[in-house]
């Protein structure tokens, strides 16, 4: 049984080398909260895609910014919330890439957000107090 009503809130800088820390934090949470081990891969992937997107595209200055990642487990549902103070951007509005296109026509980018949507059960965006709030939900009740 996974730990109930657990919450962890972590703060990262807007730098790609923070991904290593995020990876370690996700592994620690999977272990400490008794989540299914394979969720580690899913968490790594969606966090990397969402975090990288923020770092690369949210800011039009060179300043240091804080990005908050919050993990919350209730029942068999894990909620991940990412909060950044970058320019408004709603990733849920982005079109899916055409994954059936033949190789010659296949675009080389645009898979990141698509993968988040496919790996998660719910992806929601809100703009709250000049901040981007992205909520990713994974229900793992039927997974081992």
């Amino acid at each position: 049984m996974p730990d109930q009503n657990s919450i962890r809130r972590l703060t990262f800088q807007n730098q790609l080398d923070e991904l290593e820390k995020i990876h370690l934090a996700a592994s620690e949470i999977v272990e400490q909260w008794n989540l299914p081990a394979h969720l580690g891969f899913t968490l790594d992937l969606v966090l990397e895609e969402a975090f990288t997107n923020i770092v690369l595209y949210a800011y039009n200055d060179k300043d240091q910014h804080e990005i908050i990642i919050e993990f919350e487990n209730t029942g068999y549902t894990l909620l991940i919330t990412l909060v950044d103070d970058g320019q408004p951007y709603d990733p849920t509005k982005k079109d899916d890439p055409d994954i059936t296109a033949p190789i010659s026509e296949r675009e080389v980018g645009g898979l990141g957000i698509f993968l988040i949507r496919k790996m998660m059960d719910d992806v929601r965006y809100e703009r709250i107090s000049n901040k981007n709030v992205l909520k990713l939900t994974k229900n793992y009740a039927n997974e081992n």
Partner: protein
Amino acid sequence: MPMKISEQNIKNYTVVAIDGRLDTNHCDTFEKQMMEIVTRSNRLILDCKNLEYISSSGLRIFLVLQKKLMALSGQMKLCQLQPAIKEIFEISGFTMIFSIFSDLEKALES
């Protein structure tokens, strides 16, 4: 976390074994190494037995390589994908684009 590749020539193929994690921070090195290999060989097998993780940045390079090899009338095959990696390939539509084999022998013989 380190990512490394090792290369050997078997039959008429250059077999590149990928070891570790292909994430945003390691994909540039991988791309440079692979582009250098492509200048010497256009028949590649990527052995993914020890590829533990891949994100969209790594997937992008696989696609770039495949396009490059097609332009060179070459060939690229993949083998021994771990189940989690295979799942990402399926979700991304990559299983329709790449020739994927369960083991190296099959990739060499096909």
